[in-house]
């Protein structure tokens, strides 16, 4: 897949508040998808059938969530998308580069402080030092960790560690952003705040996002489309367009349409889990 110039100039000041950018009505890509699964099957050695015939496209500016019971192969899909694993069957189209992956745990290096952790990816890509620091600082400002650059991971709360992890991913100028239950281990209040900030970051740049979560509410709040997977072997059993326009505010969670949609998705999920 060809590289496209990235719209967000890295030097621009961190977005504050929510930014409205014109975007297409949810769903249908005029642009070619950034990520596309075609009939993907994954059978592990030992015979565990994790993913069964999954086809899914994610376009730029689209944030797609995957919900499903534990062990249904959601994380496997992310690993396949990132190229960490090759599918047993089927094909995947994804960018070669500019893929950001936020893992379940923040995977920070405990011997590096926040700044050096965030700069890790640039360092491994051998970018010059000044460039590295500039990018890292911009990303740190963007996730609201300004002033904590010299802290070590064991001096941070869980939420701040996850912010650091997000910042590290942002230094990659991602075209494709993969999230593997990033907020699963974080308390509800912090989690909702981080959801809001993630949306703010998402609105400021036009990456394609694939977000794996256990929480239906989180999926609906964040994404433009929610994909429901069945228990193992993971198959797509439902797809819901989320009609709420961006920017979204926390008040959305209290609205009746929001509850109706989460209820519908929950129904679908329960049907597939049996």
């Amino acid at each position: 897949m060809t590289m496209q110039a990235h719209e967000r100039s890295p030097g621009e000041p961190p977005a504050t508040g929510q930014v409205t950018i014109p975007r297409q009505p949810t769903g249908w890509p005029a642009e070619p998808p950034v990520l596309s699964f075609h009939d993907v099957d994954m059978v592990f050695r030992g015979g565990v059938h994790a993913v069964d015939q999954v086809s899914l496209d994610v376009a730029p500016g689209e944030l797609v969530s995957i919900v499903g019971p534990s062990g249904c192969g959601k994380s496997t899909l992310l690993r396949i998308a990132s190229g960490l694993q090759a599918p047993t069957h089927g094909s995947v189209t994804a960018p070669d580069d500019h893929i950001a992956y936020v893992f379940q745990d923040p995977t920070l290096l405990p011997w590096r402080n926040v700044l050096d952790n965030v700069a890790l990816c640039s360092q491994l890509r051998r970018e010059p030092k000044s460039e590295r620091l500039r990018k890292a600082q911009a990303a740190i400002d963007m996730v609201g960790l300004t002033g904590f650059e010299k802290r070590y991971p064991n001096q941070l709360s869980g939420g701040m560690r996850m912010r650091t992890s997000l910042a590290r991913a942002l230094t990659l100028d991602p075209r494709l952003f993969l999230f593997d239950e990033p907020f699963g281990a974080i308390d509800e209040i912090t989690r909702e705040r981080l959801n809001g900030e993630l949306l703010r970051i998402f609105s400021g740049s036009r990456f394609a996002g694939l977000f794996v979560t256990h929480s239906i509410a989180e999926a609906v709040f964040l994404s433009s489309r929610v994909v429901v997977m069945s228990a193992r072997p993971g198959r797509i059993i439902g797809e819901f367009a989320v009609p709420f326009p961006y920017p979204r505010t926390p008040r959305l969670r209290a609205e009746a349409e929001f509850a109706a949609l989460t209820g519908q998705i929950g129904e679908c999920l329960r049907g597939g889990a049996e």
Partner: protein
Amino acid sequence: MTITTPSATTPSAAQAAAVSPRAEAAAGAARPAVGEPALAGGQTSWPRRTAATAGPPVAVFAAFCGLWYLVSYVALTPRRRFLLPPLHEVIRVGFLDWGNFSDILRGLGNTTQVALSGFAIASAVGFTVAVLMAQTRWVERSIYPYAVALQTLPVLAMTPLVGLWFGFGLTSRILICSVLSLFPIITNTLFGLQSVEPSQRDLFALMKAGRLARLWRLELPAALPGILTGLRTSGGLAVIGAIVADFFFRQGQPGIGRLLDIYRNALETERLYAAIFCSSLLGLALFLLNTAVTKYVLRNWHASAQRKPS
């Protein structure tokens, strides 16, 4: 040594919380910054703190001395008192008589030299072997059994052979010393290198990091706690190895082990006790040095080097 009373964390946490920009930050700042001086100083006076710290070990030492005199004067008949001469006799003959004490110091110096050389060789070899083993499965599989065999082989059983090959002097002493202290370095370094979390490996794989970058930026730092543990264990073994080797390889400058042997033969138990004290001090010094290095290197990030709440 820094002593922290339970109240030490409270003021600094409160301060940090007051300045933190968001509520979430307060949770993170609750731990005091590393290296920050304990704020408890103003609350308990230092004599009390010193007494609380030094009290128990001093009491144990007093009890030890009492027991010593009890055995020496009460349990032993004067004829057998040489088995445990009174403490002040040991100090007078062994430490205050400069002729005797300088002999002991010289022996200690020679043994230290052997121990440090053996330790350095073992560290270099052990580290290299472990890094090689961590790189590829087949290297590990082909070397590891022999590393274990080297450990289970009674080193003392090798001494006659080592003597025939390398002579009964300094070279053999250093060799025995390094063989004895090699194993902990290999196992701990290897364990450390292999303790990298899978998700961190994934991260480096995603960044297409090369093998060297992975080793230098991920595996070695992650292995540091293990490496340092290996060095600590191995330092103690190196001292033991050097003293034991003194017994077997007697040519050249006598080490403290050789002196122990001489004093035993002469039944000069005052000097024998003094020499034993000094040799244990050597091991202790090396251990403390290694511990200090460990604390310093890991000060920012490893739980073992952080101040414990009381």
